[in-house]
């Protein structure tokens, strides 16, 4: 018989990405749909871009709070807001 983790202990890997993705969208404190969640070896990598540094911190805090067993790596950037230096000419 194959070994399985006891029910309710390890987060079931195949559902972890979906669970984190829905958490980030449906928790209205965050409401982020643009974060990609990828499993890497034994950790989870969060990638994407957000509108403020506070949102990046909130995302990390929320994921750690809900999935305390899962090591999390965050690579989330801030979307730049400089004025454009070029225009697009449409003829």
């Amino acid at each position: 018989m194959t070994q399985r983790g006891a029910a309710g202990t390890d987060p079931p890997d195949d559902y972890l990405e979906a669970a984190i993705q829905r958490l980030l969208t449906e928790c209205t404190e965050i409401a982020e749909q643009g974060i990609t969640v990828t499993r890497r070896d034994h950790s989870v990598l969060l990638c994407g871009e957000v509108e403020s540094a506070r949102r990046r911190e909130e995302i990390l805090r929320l994921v750690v709070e809900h999935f305390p067993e899962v090591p999390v790596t965050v690579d989330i950037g801030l979307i730049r807001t400089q004025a454009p230096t070029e225009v697009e000419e449409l003829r």
Partner: protein
Amino acid sequence: MVIRIAAVGDVHLDQDVVGRFRPALEQLPESADVLLLAGDLTRHGTESEARCVATEFGDLGVPVVAVLGNHDHHCDEVPAVIRVLEDAGILVLEGTNVVLECAGVRLGIAGAKGFGGGFAGRCASEFGEPEMKAFVRTTSAIADQLGEALREMDCDLRVALTHYAPVPDTLAGEPPEIYPFLGSYLLGQAIDSAPTELALHGHAHAGSERGTTPGGVRVRNVAHPVIKQAYSVFHLHPPYAGATAGKVSAVSAGGSS
């Protein structure tokens, strides 16, 4: 006369973002005649977030015209959100239009949030469960309003503004599995039913900038994470599509010049 259009979508504002766009926006009147906001203006559609949008995008010195996005609908406070935006002088289009006078040129903007359903050959159909039929009917009703709003304008050039995408081209970069949640070909069909010059949308944060409808209308995804700047500026040069005889055969009389 060249018409200069600035546009951005998906700014997802809340208190924590207020002020970030403002330095670039102060320069906007020098480089654009109008600013179009392509939906998802708020983080999740509260009245207080709408006040943040009003603070950030109000009093710019150029007309600001917006559509709402799915995030702006989340808290079911749409009437309050619209009221706050309109009190700040930001016009919200919902299957409606506006004609602005820009340096002697009548710029017509028709806007609608849009909805999903997918693209030709890979799209949802009005068939089966009531929920499925309601989903598809929602999109087709919005697309009909958008088409009508585009065709009925008496103007020199037409711009279509939506939140959801009218073509799959500008979704490149998004997982193909979620395309049906990102837009609908029905919006593209509506845009092609009038001699539209440019179609702007947001929503697809991981998509790409450029596309074209089957009818040849240029489409640009101006979602903030895609353009990676405060806004993009497009210069529309005459002769405009509305003046190109025979480009679209289904234009109502008096709809173009």
